[in-house]
């Protein structure tokens, strides 16, 4: 079982307590109605689908309940780091 470091609880907790939340650092457009269909499609559906280093959101749903960001290698499935939501991309 993977152990994931929760930056809020500040300890490694079992993977089963967490829920995956998709790619991180995707900001919702401030004025969606000003966007073209292509731009809206890009925001909604187009993801980097990285092979290797990937920024993603996780939620410690069966723990402190908080969303946070993580950098995980999609090839080795190893977590490089985790950090609180709202912090700079690492």
């Amino acid at each position, binding site marked *: 079982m993977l152990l994931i470091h929760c930056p*809020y*609880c500040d300890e490694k907790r*079992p993977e*089963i307590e967490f829920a995956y939340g998709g790619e991180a650092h995707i900001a919702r457009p401030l004025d969606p109605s000003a966007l073209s269909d292509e731009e809206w499609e890009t925001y909604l559906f187009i993801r980097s689908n990285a092979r290797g280093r990937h920024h993603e959101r996780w939620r410690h749903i*069966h*723990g402190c309940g908080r969303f946070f960001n993580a950098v995980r290698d999609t090839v080795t499935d190893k977590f490089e780091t985790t950090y609180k939501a709202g912090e700079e991309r690492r």
Partner: protein
Amino acid sequence: MSSLSVSTSPLPDEPFAADGVRVSRSAALQRYSLRARDPAKLAAVVGRELPGRIGGVTDGIAQLGPDEFLALLPVGTQLPSGEEEPVSVVDISSRAVGITVEGEGAAALIMSGCPLDLDRMAPGQATRTIYETVEMVLVRESETRFHIEVWRSFAPWLWQSLRLSAE
């Protein structure tokens, strides 16, 4: 209202025991969910000290998250509602029921379905976690005694599951 807010338990009255562990229904409790971005404001509203970190328990109040606390208090305890303050104080007495697991084998029994390493959980700690697929709040009251808070509708399943694991 207070007599209605603590209703009967869905769990059997009789405890069960096996192999150095005893599992019993806990006495009724007054439960509050406390939320606040600024814990200092919450502490002022409820007039109690709050634990300073996630996992801590003081005065019957456990800190589950950065802004989330669970108060487990004797039946009849009333906390102020904190009107007009940026806090949330909600009576959730009937949402969960308590299960007490005690004995030398208590930690081993809980670890049969809970992925936490309880050897690293000190007495006086509390956390939300999971048992198989059921979410619960686990409070370690002493080396050999745990209190489990589980949602009412999940409780009979958890009880049965603990019973099967104990056997």
